[in-house]
């Protein structure tokens, strides 16, 4: 009898005895990144599976590229730090510089960059540096269903926010649609944080510790309950998170997270949708590398927390904290000159489509279209996965 149950069980599991898609995806996740991205062209199903942001999450792919944008007057510089694979030689930092105007990387989401050209009438450009596909917004409207750009501005501290959304799904011919959120305590977006994107919703961390949310499907804005300033149960009796240079705001493990370096601890808090409040999920003893050193968190996922440490009279260093082994280690030494006035954009490549407007010269005068393509080519070279 026992034998029979086993047999039927074995039969049920027979399906697992094939090289099914889940196992192939598992194998693919072990490929070098460049090949992994190419596997999106295997067929439609794999294209979908590997493009899903959850794939990056489940397989804990290491954050590959971190882009810094230097705002020094001239030359304009883009730097790229690739922390993995770890190597002792110095080629994990690459630089491109230009004496010509290049756009600022204002946001990055699922492998697409949003670039802003100040000098060309604040033109925004959605760019995939891996495929080189680009779309300059404001020039024509697209019909693919890939991305949404939302701009937020404060209309007045007592009045609230105005949000303008551009959707590539919009075929009605309206370029930007405006929405308003009335609140009597509007605050400016916290300068150093980038917006986070989760379940069709964009989140901005505001300087007062509140989080503004905009649901791109329902097209409605709200402020999350409970400010980050009132988190309870912080270690060491601290009862206040200080939003500042040493905090990181973003998405990890399917939730909104905030990482904050306090004096003795690094605290990770997550927003719990059910109880609509922030909760401390992790407390790590701060590492001690000497005096006056503080880590600026850059990136968080299931496996690791990356942060950049500024060290007096020494090169800076990109540190990794491994949650499994509970240890710190240095991944890359970052020379001080790279650390001045920059903005970081963690980046995991994608082959996601951008509706290409190839014929820029049809829309812009030649000099301007040349200016746009010049910077894009530079970024594409920088992001080339060949190195």
């Amino acid at each position, binding site marked *: 009898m026992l034998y029979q149950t086993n047999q039927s069980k074995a039969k049920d599991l027979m399906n*697992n005895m094939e090289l099914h898609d889940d*196992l192939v995806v*598992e194998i*693919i996740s072990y490929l070098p990144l460049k090949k992994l991205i190419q596997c999106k062209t295997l*067929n439609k199903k794999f294209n979908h599976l590997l493009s899903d942001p959850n794939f990056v999450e489940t397989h804990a792919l290491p954050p590959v590229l971190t882009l810094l944008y230097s705002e020094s007057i001239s030359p304009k510089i883009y730097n790229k730090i690739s922390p993995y694979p770890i190597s002792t030689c110095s080629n994990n930092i690459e630089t491109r510089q230009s004496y010509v105007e290049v756009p600022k990387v204002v946001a990055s989401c699922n492998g697409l960059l949003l670039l802003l050209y100040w000098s060309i009438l604040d033109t925004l450009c959605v760019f995939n540096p891996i495929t080189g596909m680009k779309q300059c917004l404001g020039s024509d409207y697209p019909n693919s269903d890939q991305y949404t750009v939302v701009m937020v501005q404060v209309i007045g501290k007592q009045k609230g926010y105005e949000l303008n959304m551009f959707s590539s799904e919009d075929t009605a011919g309206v370029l930007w649609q405006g929405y308003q959120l009335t609140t009597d305590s509007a605050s400016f977006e916290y300068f150093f944080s980038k917006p986070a994107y989760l379940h069709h919703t964009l989140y901005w961390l505001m300087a007062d510790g509140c989080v503004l949310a905009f649901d791109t499907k329902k097209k409605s804005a709200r402020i999350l309950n409970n400010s980050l300033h009132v988190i309870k149960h912080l270690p060491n009796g601290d009862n206040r998170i200080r939003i500042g240079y040493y905090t990181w705001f973003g998405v990890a493990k399917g939730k909104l997270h905030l990482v904050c370096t306090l004096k003795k601890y690094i605290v990770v808090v997550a927003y719990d949708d059910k109880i609509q409040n922030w909760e401390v999920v992790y407390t790590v003893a701060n590492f001690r590398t000497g005096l006056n050193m503080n880590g600026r968190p850059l990136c968080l996922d299931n496996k690791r927390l990356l942060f950049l440490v500024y060290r007096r009279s020494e090169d800076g260093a990109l540190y990794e904290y491994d949650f499994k082994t509970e240890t710190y280690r240095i991944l890359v030494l970052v020379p001080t000159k790279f650390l001045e006035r920059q903005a970081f954009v963690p980046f995991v490549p994608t082959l996601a489509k951008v509706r290409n407007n190839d014929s820029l010269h049809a829309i812009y005068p030649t000099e301007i279209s040349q200016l746009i393509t010049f910077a894009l080519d530079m970024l594409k070279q920088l992001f080339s996965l060949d190195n």
Partner: protein
Amino acid sequence: MASSTTGEKKILTLKGGDNEEFILEESLVLQSELLKNMVKEERVSSIPLPSIKSKTLVKIIEYLKKHAELTPSNKEEFKNFEKEFVNVVLEELLDITVAVNYLKINGLLEFCCQAVADRIKDKSVEAVRKIFRIESDFTPEEESEFRKETPEAFEGDLDDTTN
């Protein structure tokens, strides 16, 4: 089907695809999550694994034995064994990987996946499709667009033999 016991050690029989029987200590198979659950839930002494080729099963049992003997002092030796273990034709390696995935032997699965990945990393998309028996369902237009966007994906080693 009587469960046999030698001293403290329980003995278990695994039956491979071609009815070949493998007798081994129960403690060894506990490395497999699937077999562990079967043994614990139903106290069986014989487990049929008709879908796993005997050849594959021999390899896996060999691994289980070596892994059970792993101590800090023979780490190097074990690493060499692992290297040799995956040094088989790709088709056999895929068979082993599928079986290990089915048996849920965690450490070994990661190792096998990495080994397969190392084997295919220089191959063209076309070759990878054939190896994994994946049919492309892209239209010729989409296909040619991919070729334009990422020409290097279609270069690579075209060899799709699994030998």
